[in-house]
């Protein structure tokens, strides 16, 4: 395959992925619009308050454009993304710049700003936990290959397996009660922005990171171990051995190299998944991120917030999957070439 052709292929691949991603996201937004249109829960009544009169509910419905037909509301939503939107605060008219995801029904906040405010929390949680589980997972995997067949391997595989079998909300709560409440080693998690105090940021998030990492590390340990064993079984490794290359170097360098691509690809894929799964962790630890806000928005039928946040999560899932795909393609080529 010539370099030019490969590049061309890659460009074509990228363009197709981008178009695919846009179509996917549009489809998601349509589904959410329809689902929430059908869902019970009178938005105007919820926004207006329980004791509002029918006339007041009508006024609120009008002000939120809830009387418009579904397709028109969706069209306005698309317009907002491309061209921005004007809205009234009662005393003045404000402009919400493109890409404007609309205004929360419940709090009158711009959804775009709401998301920007919550995103750092979710990122902190997911990226931190991922770093930790990569360290623990890959470390365990390498160690279990290094000590394969010995008691260490059995203990390590057992522990990581036990991690997979425990739901995050059990681990999280028990850790929180024991570590924060009884032993008082760590503070009860409370989000401190990184910019404000990096040390407190990490200190507070350590427990959520650990809980997630304990659960996820197992899969990485298993993947690392299997990829390494596979490499070890390859001919060239046998050749190295024959030439007297030390076991430490073989495991640490050559075998580990074989595990890099699949592990990174799995991590990219999990990054997307964790964004969606943050709902559970954030609710569990009371971290004010996208996931928890989303559950709240669903409960109060706050459609603009739900659509906005699901799109953002979907965006990361799509991008992460694309990255994972590319990495796997790269990984495969390496296999073929070798």
């Amino acid at each position, binding site marked *: 395959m010539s370099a030019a052709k490969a590049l061309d292929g890659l460009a074509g691949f990228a363009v197709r992925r981008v178009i695919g991603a846009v179509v996917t996201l549009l489809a998601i937004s349509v589904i959410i619009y329809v689902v929430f249109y059908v869902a019970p829960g009178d938005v105007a009544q*919820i926004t207006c308050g329980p004791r509002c009169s*029918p006339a007041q509910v009508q006024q609120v419905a009008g*002000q939120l454009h809830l009387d418009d037909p579904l397709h028109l509301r969706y069209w306005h939503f698309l317009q907002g993304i491309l061209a921005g939107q004007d809205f*009234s605060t009662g*005393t*003045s008219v404000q402009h919400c710049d493109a890409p404007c995801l609309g205004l929360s029904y419940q709090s*009158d906040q711009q959804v775009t700003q709401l998301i920007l405010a919550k995103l750092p929390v979710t990122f902190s949680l997911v990226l931190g936990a991922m770093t930790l589980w990569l360290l623990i997972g890959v470390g365990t995997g390498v160690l279990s290959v290094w000590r394969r067949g010995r008691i260490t391997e059995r203990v390590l595989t057992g522990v990581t397996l036990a991690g997979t079998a425990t739901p995050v909300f059990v681990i999280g709560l028990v850790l929180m009660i024991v570590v924060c409440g009884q032993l008082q080693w760590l503070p009860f998690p*409370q989000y401190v922005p990184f910019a404000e105090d990096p040390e407190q940021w990490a200190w507070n998030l350590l427990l959520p990171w650990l809980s997630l990492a304990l659960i996820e590390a197992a899969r990485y340990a298993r993947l690392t171990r299997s990829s390494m064993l596979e490499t070890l079984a390859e001919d060239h490794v046998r050749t190295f051995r024959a030439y007297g290359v030390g076991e430490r170097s073989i495991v640490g360098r050559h075998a580990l190299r074989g595990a890099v691509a699949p592990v990174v690809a799995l991590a990219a894929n999990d990054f997307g998944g964790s964004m969606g799964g943050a709902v559970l962790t954030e609710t569990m630890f*009371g971290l004010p991120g996208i996931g928890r806000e989303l559950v709240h928005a669903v*409960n109060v039928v706050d459609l603009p917030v739900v659509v906005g946040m699901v799109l953002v999560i979907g965006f990361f899932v799509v991008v992460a999957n694309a990255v994972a795909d590319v990495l796997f393609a790269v990984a495969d080529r390496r296999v073929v070439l070798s």
Partner: protein
Amino acid sequence: MRHSPPSRRARSARRTAAWSVSLIVAAGAAACGPEDNDAKPGGSDAAPHKGGTLTVLNSDPQQDFDPARLYTSGGGNVPSLVFRTLTTRNRENGAEGAKVVPDLATDTGRPNKDATVWTYTLKEGLKYEDGSAITSADIKYGIERSFAAELSGGAPYLRDWLIGGADYQGPYKDKGKGLDSIETPDERTIVFHLDKPEGEFPYLATQTQFAPVPRAKDTGTEYEEHPVSSGPYKVAENQNDGERLVLERNTYWSAATDAERKAYPDRIDVRSGIDPSVINQRLSASQGADAAAVTTDTNLGPAELAKVTGDKELASRVGTGHFGYTNYIAFNPKVKPFDDPKVRQAIAYAVDRTSVINAAGGSALAEPATTYLPNQKSFGYTPYDHFPAGASGDPAKAKELLKQAGYENGLTVTLTHSNAQDFETGPEIATALQDALKKAGITVKLQGLEDNDYSDTVHDAKTEPGFFLAHWGADWPSGGPFLAPIFDGRQIVEDGANFNTGFLNDKSVNDEIDAINKLTDLDEAAKRWGALDKKIGERALTVPLFHPVYKRLYGKDIRNVVISDWTGVLDISQVAVE
């Protein structure tokens, strides 16, 4: 209703809720209800210390911080630190605290002869956080803007009581047209014209809609980010739509004009969005800043209570209070077989209140109810038990009534409840009832609805089920806002949210409600509400189940704990930090 966030584990947080989260957040809690006499925890010893930072750990963010949008009982807890109102609740322990007292005004209001015109005079020297003077026109404007669709959310009374209120759409429409039924003849006087007698107007004037808003500073829906303070504290920071609220002293507030708020701490740091169980864990650990922490929305749940009762130190840091609140079974007499009073009575006899109370958290967190009105003096509590079921039900009597009604072979009915976990209308209470009614030969099928669906269904005259769980909380501690929305035949709403779920439209009841509303002697009115409650109770349109008791932890360094019967929770304006 403005509903609260993540449905689960609101075990503690939710228990407070009357209708709206806003109300919850607002309503505080109070310790010491009637029976456990008094919270002296921490100490009423020496003069409380002034200064320091008070931390508030909450589950629900203060998303609404606009006085027009808040639905509070008595002006709320945190909001009351920033918003002064014409009148306010008396900041005293127990029953004394259920009284209404003057705040911005010099008295609780001067009615005309038939209580249709109410006149207030503002105290002298009242100032906003920027030093400018508070005028009666600002109070009028504050009320007017609460009519705008953009700022909806408050209680319905202004709309229902003020002349022209039903059609008024707020000052943002029609070039700032005002509401003519509020007059401000001079800067310190304000006069309200009502379309019918309302002796309880002074109670209404405690709500945040009666806080002054300077027209020039009004920014509509954005006002809540930094509302102009008239109280002892002003908003220094409002992050993420009320998730964190930092309040600092308003130097223009003068204690000389405010007899109610003590305002001991220099700074108040409200952090919300915390899981209820974490809040209670933190308060019990009471480390660092948490030692000077309280919560204004999270009660102790049963599991936590079990732990607290075994620990003397923790037990000394629990504030106990009673907020006027009733959980009950509601019937729709238009649906068979509940059209037959005998069937309703049979269910009333069959109820096992011990099981129900256990499901609601045990005898420390709920008291059995046989009256619709809460068991407090200010409501005019008049004990009665028309269908005595004892502690665990009287299935024999229930069977006998069913036989008379023609169901000697038993009966199968559907009980509708909310799926919200640990909420008073939730599955736990429903299953407890299901189990108890089985003994009386009544097979109960459960129909659980998701939260929003539940409130839509139950409060729509067209879809209302025959047999469901309901609850009602006090907008202020009196029989009026408790009985009128539920039993006044003229409040039946056919095409919107209806709360008269028993569709009672009885002239004698309606007339008595009108007669009591004319009374301006609130003690006399309370007695009459109590008597009316007893009379309505005979119809068995509801089966009262229990009144909740609020128990909340506070940190080691918290002093001067005051818990009134109005809010049932610790009053944040009285707290001092060691």
